[in-house]
């Protein structure tokens, strides 16, 4: 259990059976009154936020949250299988849970998986991944402008916006945090 004086920005706590991270924290104390610990909490699963004020007598649960480094291994229908880099233990995560992140999984990519009570609640991919463009309209010859974009498809069907000079067969770098094109990868 945490006591309120342990609370600080970035600390993970459990409230009502859910894992939360403290996104804002302020110690308050009306002159003659009791100390108060005001927190803004962000739910680590749903992302919703709430405000909560603790008094010195309150106790706060420590959540059973662990982060593991895992390789993405292979796809099995609706599930993606990750394997723990230390124990080789496998964890299956559904496509629905991963959302768009599923499009940016590359075999052997080193990811960070956050578990709450043994259940995965978040997957952090490598910031940049490289993917091949399989379909895009040819850009005008010699057009190297980077501020004009056109749609392009990855080999898994995901569509991104790329500059006009990108051609089918090009390898591009994608920022997995935003899902957006970052730069063209020069072929060796």
């Amino acid at each position, binding site marked *: 259990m945490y006591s309120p004086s342990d609370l600080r920005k970035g600390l993970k706590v459990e409230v009502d059976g859910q894992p939360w991270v403290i996104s804002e924290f302020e*110690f308050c104390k009306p002159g003659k009154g009791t100390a108060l610990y005001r927190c803004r909490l962000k739910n680590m699963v749903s992302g919703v936020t709430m405000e909560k004020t603790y008094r010195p007598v309150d106790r706060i649960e420590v959540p059973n949250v662990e982060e593991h480094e895992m390789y993405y291994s292979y796809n099995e229908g609706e599930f993606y299988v990750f394997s723990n880099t230390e124990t080789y233990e496998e964890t299956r995560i559904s496509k629905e849970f991963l959302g768009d992140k599923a499009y940016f999984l590359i075999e052997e990519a080193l990811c960070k998986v956050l578990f709450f009570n043994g259940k995965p609640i978040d997957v952090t991919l490598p910031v940049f991944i490289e993917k091949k463009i399989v379909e895009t309209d040819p850009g005008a010859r010699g057009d190297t402008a980077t501020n004009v974009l056109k749609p392009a498809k990855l080999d898994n069907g995901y569509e991104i916006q790329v500059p006009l000079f990108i051609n089918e067969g090009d390898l591009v770098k994608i920022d997995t945090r935003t899902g957006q094109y970052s730069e063209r990868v020069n072929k060796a």
Partner: protein
Amino acid sequence: MSTKPDSIRKIESSRGRFEIKAGLLFSLRAFFGAESFLEVNTPVRIKAPAPEEYIEAVSSEDFFLRTSPELEMKRMLASGFEKIYQIGPCFRSGEYGRNHRTEFLMLEYYQAHADYMQLLSLTTRMLRFAASELLPDMTAFFRGNRINFNAPWEIISVRDAFANYAGISAEDAIRQELFDILLVEKIEPALRKDVPVVMKDYPAELASLSRLKADDGTLGERWELYIGGLEIANAFGELTAPAEQKARFKKSYEFRKSAKMKEYPEPQEFYDALVSGIPSSSGCAMGLDRLAMVFSDADDISQVILQ
């Protein structure tokens, strides 16, 4: 490229604020001098702090660091000093945050034969004088608000503040142990931020060391000053009746014991002063680091203090 450590650069960047803080101390002393107040110094290490429910003293060998100079200054009132003030460090264990440090600079002043509203009028003149010396148009810019010291200050009773802003009576809030939380969550944010605000007349349960009002025994002669939503000062029409004072201390000692808080020895010399007679007086304690924050638009107390 600078190789200075961040801790040094932070002090360098605070120069303007330290100059404003120094200007504040200079003008406060000038004001008190002109009002014939005597500057006094009482010990920082004391035998027995005033027992308060929620204020923790720091131990120092078999002494305590004072949480306020209150009891020592009241001993001086009993000895015939009628207008006194003190500027010096006080210590409150476990207080650390954007507006709090364990060690902070306190201004405390007492006037015999003045009631708590007369002390408010002195306080108003004092801060208007400091503002006229240090702030353009007597207006502070603090945490996004413009606070005009020269405009009429807002005075609101604790009962009205709870009824208007918290939707519950102050008495019910106390009964449900919600007073402090509602004060912080509902009332402080709702207070006006364009002029200094005074909340006055606290329910008797929260009278602390103030005497009860002669015409309404359910209220204590106590006010608190807020500037830009930040609590700056606390004032009492001082309780000087020996039996009542000892009874309130006894309650606090019992509370501290049952809450397993640090136990303090009883302040015998202060009891002597009570028995020999403290004249009817009012007193105010003001956080000078916080006042310097308001005058220099500091978001965090670390910008006006070296820690």
